[in-house]
C-alpha cells in the first residue's frame, strides 16, 4: 500500500472490479432498502458514506460490553474502553502510512481538526503581513478558518487558481508561495471537482520557503492509500464518517515537534497535568489536545472501518473507483446536455463527479433522481468561492464508493434521460 500507486494506473475501459462489489454491497445493510419504490442507489459518498455491518456491530459490542469513560478508570470496563480507544489510535497511525501514536489526535471531524490548527498553531505563528496560501477549490472547512485568521491577524490570504480543466494552476506557484508564506493549506482531493492535487510538490515548495503545510485529506483518505510522511505534510486531516466510520470522529495528524510546541485547543479534563486556581500545566501528547470525555464509542468503532478498508486494500479501492469513475464519465458524456466539472483523466481524479444539465437546475436533478431512488447531492457543496470561479450557482454531484458498481451508474444515466423527458426539455 504505497502512497500514490493508484495514481500510476491508467484505466481506459471498464474492467472487472478488483474485488467483489456484490459482496461488499451485501455488507452494508442500509443499501438493502427501497426508496420511493426503487432499490436505493447511494451516490452521495463525498458527503458521508454508509457503514458496513462490522462497524455497526462494533458500536453494539462496545455499548453492550465495554462502555465506560476512559484513561482515569481503575476498573475492568474502563480498561477495556481505554485499550479499544487507544487501539484505534495505533490503527490510524498505521493507516496513514506510519506515524507515532501520539501524532494522532482525535477530533469531532475534519472541520474541528483544521480549526484546531488555526486556533493554536495559527494563533501563535501568524502575524501581520504574513501570507497564508490556499487554493480556489477549498471546502469551507479549509477556507473559512484561514479567511478569519488572516482577518484577525492582518495577514494576507493568497490562493492558487484552477485551470479550466479543474487542475490547480501551478505555473506561478513560486510567486504565490513566497518567503512571506507561513502556511499552505490545500486539499488532497477536491470534493467538487474530484481533482487529486499534487500535494507532495506543493508541500515541497512550502517547505522550501520555510512554510508549514496542512493537507485536508477529507476526500483522499477514504479513497486512496495515504502516506503522510511521504507527502511531507506537517498536518493532515480527515473525517471517519466519510470512510465507513461513525459520525462525530475526525483525525488530525501532526508532527510531534509541532504539536508539542502548540498551545492546547480546548481546556478541560484529561488535557491537563496539574491545575491550580492560578496556574495550569498541560498533559503530554496526544491528551493535551483531547480535552474532556472523547467520542469513545465512535472512535472504537472507527477501528472496524479501517479494518474493512485494510481488508479490501486501499490500492484496490482506488483502482475500483478509478475504473468506475471512468465508466461513469464516459456514460455521462454521452448525454449531450450534461456538463461535467473537473479533470477528465480518471488517474487524476477521484469519484466525486459534479455535473449540470443545460436545462434542468441541479436541485431539480437531485429531486428527480431521488424519486427514482438515487441519492445525489445538489448545491454549492460547501465550496461557494469555487462555484463562483466555475460560474455556477450549484451543481449536482454523484460520488462513488466501494459498494457502487456499473449498474448504479447505469441507473443514474437512465434516470437523467428520463428526467429530461419529464421536464419536457
Amino acid at each position, binding site marked *: 500500500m504505497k502512497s500514490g500507486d493508484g495514481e500510476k494506473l491508467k484505466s481506459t475501459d471498464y474492467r472487472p472490479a478488483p474485488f467483489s462489489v456484490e459482496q461488499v454491497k451485501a455488507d452494508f445493510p442500509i443499501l438493502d432498502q427501497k426508496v420511493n419504490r426503487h432499490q436505493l442507489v447511494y451516490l452521495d459518498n463525498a458527503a458521508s458514506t454508509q457503514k458496513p455491518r462490522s462497524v455497526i456491530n462494533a458500536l453494539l459490542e462496545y455499548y453492550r460490553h465495554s462502555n465506560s469513560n476512559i484513561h482515569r478508570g481503575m476498573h475492568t470496563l474502563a480498561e477495556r474502553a481505554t485499550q479499544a480507544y487507544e487501539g484505534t489510535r495505533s490503527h490510524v497511525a498505521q493507516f496513514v502510512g506510519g506515524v507515532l501514536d501520539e501524532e494522532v489526535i482525535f477530533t469531532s471531524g475534519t472541520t474541528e481538526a483544521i480549526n484546531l490548527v488555526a486556533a493554536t498553531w495559527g494563533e501563535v505563528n501568524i502575524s501581520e503581513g504574513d501570507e497564508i496560501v490556499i487554493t480556489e477549490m477549498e471546502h469551507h472547512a479549509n477556507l473559512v478558518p484561514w479567511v478569519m485568521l488572516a482577518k484577525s491577524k492582518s495577514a494576507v490570504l493568497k490562493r492558487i487558481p484552477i485551470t479550466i480543466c479543474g487542475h490547480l494552476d501551478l505555473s506561478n506557484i513560486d510567486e504565490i508561495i513566497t518567503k512571506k508564506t507561513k502556511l499552505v493549506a490545500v486539499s488532497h482531493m477536491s470534493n467538487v471537482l474530484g481533482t487529486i492535487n499534487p500535494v507532495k510538490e506543493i508541500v515541497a515548495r512550502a517547505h522550501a520557503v520555510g512554510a508549514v503545510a496542512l493537507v485536508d485529506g477529507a476526500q483522499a483518505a477514504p479513497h486512496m492509500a495515504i502516506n503522510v510522511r511521504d507527502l511531507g505534510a506537517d498536518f493532515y486531516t480527515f473525517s471517519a464518517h466519510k470512510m465507513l466510520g461513525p459520525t462525530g470522529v475526525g483525525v488530525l495528524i501532526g508532527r510531534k515537534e509541532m504539536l508539542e510546541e502548540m498551545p492546547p485547543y480546548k481546556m478541560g479534563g484529561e488535557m491537563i497535568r496539574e491545575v491550580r486556581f492560578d496556574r495550569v500545566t498541560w498533559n503530554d501528547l496526544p491528551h493535551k489536545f483531547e480535552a474532556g470525555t472523547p467520542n469513545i464509542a465512535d472512535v472504537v468503532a472507527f477501528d472496524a472501518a479501517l479494518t474493512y478498508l485494510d481488508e479490501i486494500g486501499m490500492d484496490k479501492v482506488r483502482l475500483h473507483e478509478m475504473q468506475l469513475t471512468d465508466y461513469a464519465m464516459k456514460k455521462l458524456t454521452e448525454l449531450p446536455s450534461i456538463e461535467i466539472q473537473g479533470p477528465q483523466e480518471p488517474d487524476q481524479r477521484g469519484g466525486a463527479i459534479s455535473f449540470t444539465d443545460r436545462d434542468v437546475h441541479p*436541485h431539480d436533478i437531485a*429531486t428527480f433522481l431521488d*424519486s427514482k431512488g438515487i441519492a445525489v447531492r445538489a448545491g454549492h457543496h460547501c465550496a461557494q468561492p469555487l462555484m463562483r470561479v466555475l460560474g455556477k450557482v450549484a451543481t449536482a454531484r454523484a460520488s462513488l464508493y466501494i459498494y457502487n458498481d456499473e449498474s448504479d451508474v447505469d441507473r443514474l444515466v437512465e434516470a437523467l434521460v428520463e428526467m429530461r423527458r419529464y421536464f419536457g426539455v
Partner: protein
Amino acid sequence: MNDQLDDMYREIILDHYRSPRGKQPVDKADISSEGMNPACGDEIDMQVEIDEESVKKISVNCRGCAISVASGSMLAEMVKGKSLEEVARLAEVVRKMLKGEGDEIPEEFGDLDALKGVRNFPVRVKCALLSWITLLDGLTRYKKGEGLRSSAISTEDK
C-alpha cells in the same frame, strides 16, 4: 412518489419555470430587495415600483431551480396591481401554506395553488418560499421608509 413528484412539478409550474413572468425592469424601484437560500444557492433580485400604495410594476430575477423560479414568476403575476396591504396578506398566506402552518390557499389565488405539492419535499419548501420572504422583507422595510436594499434576506431567517 412519482405521484408526489408530479404533484410538485405540475404542468403549471413547469410552464412558469420555462417562461418566467416579470423579467422586465421597473422604471423606478421603490422597493429593492435581495434574497438567498443558502441551503441551495438560489438567489433572487426583486424591484417594486409603487404607485398610490399599490404595486405598479414588479421585476423578479431569480437564479434557481424550477420551484424557486416558478414561485417567483407566479408572484410577479399575482401581485401586480394589488394594494400593498393585499400583497402583504397574500405573501403571508403563501408563507404559512408552505410552512404547513396556515390555511389553504383561497380559490381566487389561481396558479399559486400549484405550489402546494412542494410541501411533500421539505427541503424544497425554501425554494418556493424564497421570492415571498424577499417580497415580505422589502415591504417591511418600505413601511419603515427603508425600501431600498440593505442586506439580502435568507430563507434561514425566521
